[in-house]
C-alpha cells in the first residue's frame, strides 16, 4: 500500500502545472473566474480555451499519439483531473467530443468518420452534444421514441430530445434513434452523427433551478442524416452506447476532486465567518457535522483510489467502481445542504450579498441535479443491487 506518485508522474504534474500557469485565461489563477454571460461570448471563450489546450497538447491526453493525444497512463489522467480541479479550470466545451465521441470513433468508426471528425474534435472546431434522453425516456433510455426512417437513401429523423448538454453551442450530436420496432427493447436502436446545423434541428434551452442553462431540448423535424453518419451497425446502437460509456476510464475523478475542493471551501467558511466574534467552527454542531462529512468524503475518495488500484492491477475497473458516482453525488448534496444550514438566516443571501461566497448558494441548488443526471440514485441502486450483490432483477424491467 502506498500513496506516492512515481517520479514520472510527478514530472507530468509539474509540466501541466507550469503550462497552466502560463496559459490559463488572464487573472484566472488570481480568482477572476467569471465567464461571459451572453451566449456568443461564452461560446467563444470556451472554444478559445479548448484551442489553447489543443495547442499545448493538453486537450485529449488519453488519446493515442497518432490522433494527437499523449497515450497518457491512467495515473496521468487522474493527475490531470486533480490539477484541472485545483485551478478550477474553465469547462471543456467539447467534453463529449473529447471523452466520448472521439474515443468511440477511434474504436469503431469508419475511416471516413475518423478523418472527418477526430481532428476537429481535438481542436474544438467542432463541438459535440449527446442526444440520449427524451421526455418519455429518462431513467429508461430504451423507451426512446425518436425515429429515423430511410427514404430515398436518406434517413429522416423525427422526435424530441431533452437534457442535451451543450446543444446550444454544439455543431454535431451523437444521436440515439429508433430505426425499427423490436420486441427486445435494446434492439432497433441506431446511433447517428447528426449535423446540428440544419433546418430540421431546433434547440431550446432548459432553465435549471439554479438559473443556469446548461441543457437543452432539441426538436427534430425531418432532420436528415445519411448512412455514412451511422456509428457501428444499424440497429446495434445499444452496444455503441455501452462502448462509449466504457471510454470513461478515469471514472468520476473530476467529481471526486471537485467535491473535496468544495468541502474545503465550506471548512474555510466555517473558520472565517464569525458570529458575535466566534468562528462558526466553534459551534459543536458545526464541528461535529463537518467532521462527519470529512470522514465520508474521505471514504468516497479512498473508495475511488481503491477502484483505481483495481484498474491498474487488472486492466479494467472492478464492479465496485459503480459505487463511486452514487456516493459522490449524494455527498455533494449533503455538503451544500449542511453549508446552507450553518449560515443561519444570512444563508438566504446570494450573489454579491452572500455571507461568504454567493456561488455556494448556487452550487447548493445545482447539487440537486447530481443525483438525477447521469442515472438517478434510484437506478444506480438497482444496478448495484443486481450487478454487484446479485439480487433479483426489478419487476417491470
Amino acid at each position, binding site marked *: 500500500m502506498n500513496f506516492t506518485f512515481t517520479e514520472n508522474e510527478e514530472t507530468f504534474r509539474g509540466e501541466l502545472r507550469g503550462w497552466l500557469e502560463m496559459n490559463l485565461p488572464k487573472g484566472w489563477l488570481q480568482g477572476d473566474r467569471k465567464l461571459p454571460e451572453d451566449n456568443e461570448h461564452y461560446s467563444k471563450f470556451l472554444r478559445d480555451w479548448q484551442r489553447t489546450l489543443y495547442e499545448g497538447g493538453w486537450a485529449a491526453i488519453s488519446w493515442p499519439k497518432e490522433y494527437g493525444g499523449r497515450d497518457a497512463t491512467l495515473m496521468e489522467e487522474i493527475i490531470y483531473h486533480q490539477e484541472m480541479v485545483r485551478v478550477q479550470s474553465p469547462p471543456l466545451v467539447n467534453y463529449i467530443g473529447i471523452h466520448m465521441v472521439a474515443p468511440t470513433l477511434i474504436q469503431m468508426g469508419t475511416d471516413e468518420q475518423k478523418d472527418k471528425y477526430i481532428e476537429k474534435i481535438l481542436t474544438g472546431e467542432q463541438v459535440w452534444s449527446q442526444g440520449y*434522453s427524451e421526455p*418519455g425516456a*429518462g*431513467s*429508461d433510455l430504451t*423507451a426512446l421514441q425518436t425515429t429515423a426512417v430511410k427514404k430515398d437513401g436518406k434517413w429522416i429523423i423525427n422526435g424530441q430530445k*431533452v*437534457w442535451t448538454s451543450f446543444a446550444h453551442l454544439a455543431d454535431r450530436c451523437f444521436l440515439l434513434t429508433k430505426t425499427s420496432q423490436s420486441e427486445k427493447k435494446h434492439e432497433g436502436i441506431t446511433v447517428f452523427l447528426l449535423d446540428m446545423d440544419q433546418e430540421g434541428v431546433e434547440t431550446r434551452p*432548459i*432553465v*435549471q*433551478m439554479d*438559473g443556469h442553462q446548461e441543457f437543452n431540448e432539441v426538436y427534430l423535424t425531418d432532420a436528415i442524416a445519411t448512412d455514412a453518419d451511422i456509428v457501428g451497425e444499424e440497429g446495434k446502437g445499444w452496444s455503441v452506447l455501452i462502448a462509449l460509456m466504457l471510454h470513461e476510464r478515469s471514472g468520476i475523478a473530476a467529481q471526486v476532486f471537485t467535491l473535496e475542493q468544495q468541502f474545503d471551501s465550506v471548512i474555510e467558511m466555517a473558520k472565517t465567518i*464569525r*458570529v*458575535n466574534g466566534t468562528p462558526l467552527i466553534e459551534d459543536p*454542531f458545526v464541528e461535529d457535522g463537518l467532521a462527519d462529512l470529512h470522514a465520508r468524503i474521505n471514504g468516497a475518495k479512498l473508495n475511488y483510489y481503491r477502484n483505481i488500484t483495481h484498474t491498474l492491477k487488472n486492466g479494467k475497473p472492478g464492479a465496485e467502481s459503480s459505487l463511486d458516482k452514487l456516493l459522490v453525488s449524494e455527498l455533494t*448534496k449533503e455538503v451544500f*445542504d449542511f453549508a*446552507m*444550514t450553518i*449560515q*443561519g*438566516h*444570512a*444563508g*438566504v*443571501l*446570494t*450573489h*454579491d*450579498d*452572500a455571507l461568504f461566497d*454567493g456561488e455556494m*448558494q448556487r452550487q*447548493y*441548488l445545482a447539487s*440537486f*441535479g447530481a*443525483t*438525477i*443526471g447521469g442515472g*438517478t*440514485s*434510484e437506478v444506480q*441502486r438497482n444496478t448495484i443491487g443486481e450487478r454487484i450483490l446479485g439480487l433479483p432483477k*426489478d*419487476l*417491470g*424491467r
Partner: protein
Amino acid sequence: MDFALSEEQELFRTAIRKYMNNINGTEAARAVIDGKLDVVTRFASGMAELGVTAIPVSEESDGLGLGALDLVPVFEETGRVLLPGSQLETLALAVPLLESYGTPAQKAARLPNVATGGSTMSVAWYEKGTSLFPNSFCCVAAKTENGYALTGTKTLVPVIGEPDVFITGAQTAEGKSLFLVKASDLASVRMLSVIDETQRLAEVTFDAAPGELLGEPGNAADMMKHGLLHFNAALCSSMVGGMDELVKMTAEYSKIRVQFNQPIGRFQAIKHGIVNMKLDLETARSLSYYAAWAVESDAVDKISAVHSARSFISKAYIKAAGDSIQIHGGIGFTEELDVQLFLKRARYYENYFGSVHDSRKETAHSLGWHLGSATRDAVPAS
C-alpha cells in the same frame, strides 16, 4: 377531546382556498420573480376583503379578535401557493407585539389600519456579523426631546408589499429595546439578492430616524420571544401548507410518469419515499395545530409546543422539497416546475428568526430538563 379545527375554521379555509384558486397556484409568486410587484398589493387587498387581516386584531381595534387557531387555515392556504407578501410578519408578529406591548395610542394609530388592509408592517432585527439569532443589536437609539433617534444598519429586512412601519431593535441606556420606525424615515434601502426570489429583502439604514419606543425599554429580548411564539406557530402552518402541496404534486406525478413500463409510483423506492413525506406531513400538521392551540390557550407548555413544531417542520419541509425534486427527476430540476420554488421557500424559512438547534434548546429548557426535575407535557391530563 377534540383535536381538529372547528367547522368555522374549516369553512374559512374553503373560502380562502377558493380565492387562491383564482391565483392559479404559484402564479403570484412567479410574478414577483418576474418583478411584477403589483401582485403583492393586489392580493393583500384580496386577503383584506376576505377578512384575513382582521383576524388577530382585537375587537377594540376594529378587528375580529380571533386567535392563533383561526390563522391556521389562512397560512396553510397561503403557504400552499407561496403567496408573496408580508402577511406573516404583519399578522403573526407585528400585531401580537403591538397588542401585547403597544400603548393605547400606538394601537389606535396602527391596528385598525392593519385590520382593514390599509397598512402592512415588517421587522428589522438582523444586523451584520452579529448573532445568527436576531437579538444582538449594535444599532443605537439616542433619547431626544420627543422620543428616540435611531442610528445604524439593519439587514435581511423583509420589504415586500412596502410595509409602512418597521419594528426594530436598538440599544438604549436601559438595554436592548424595541422601536417602531416609519418606512418614510429610513435613510436608505438597498435591495439584496435572495435565494428565494419570491421574497424581497433589503439592507436599511437609520440616520437619527425617529423611533417610537414599544413596550418597556431594555425588554427587547423577552418581547421578541413572546412575539416569535405567535410568529413561529403561524410560520409552521405556512410550511405545512407547502408540504401538503408537495405531497400532493409528488404523488400525482408518480401516478402518471411512466418508466420501465410502470408508473414510477409502483416502485418502492418512489412509493416509500412519498409515504415518508406523508408521514412527516401528518406529524407536522399535528404539531402545528397543537402549537397554535397552545399559543391561543396560553397553555403552560406553549414554548415547547411551538418550538417542537418549528424544529421538526423546518427540517421536514426542506426534506420534502428535496425528495420531491428527486422523485420528479430531470423535470424537477427545472424552473418550469414549482417544486424548486417550495425548496427555496423551505430553505428561506429554515433559520428565519432562529435555527432548528435554537428551537430544540428552547424546548429542552422550557420542559425543565436542566432544572433537575421533569415537568410533564400538559396533554393529556394523566
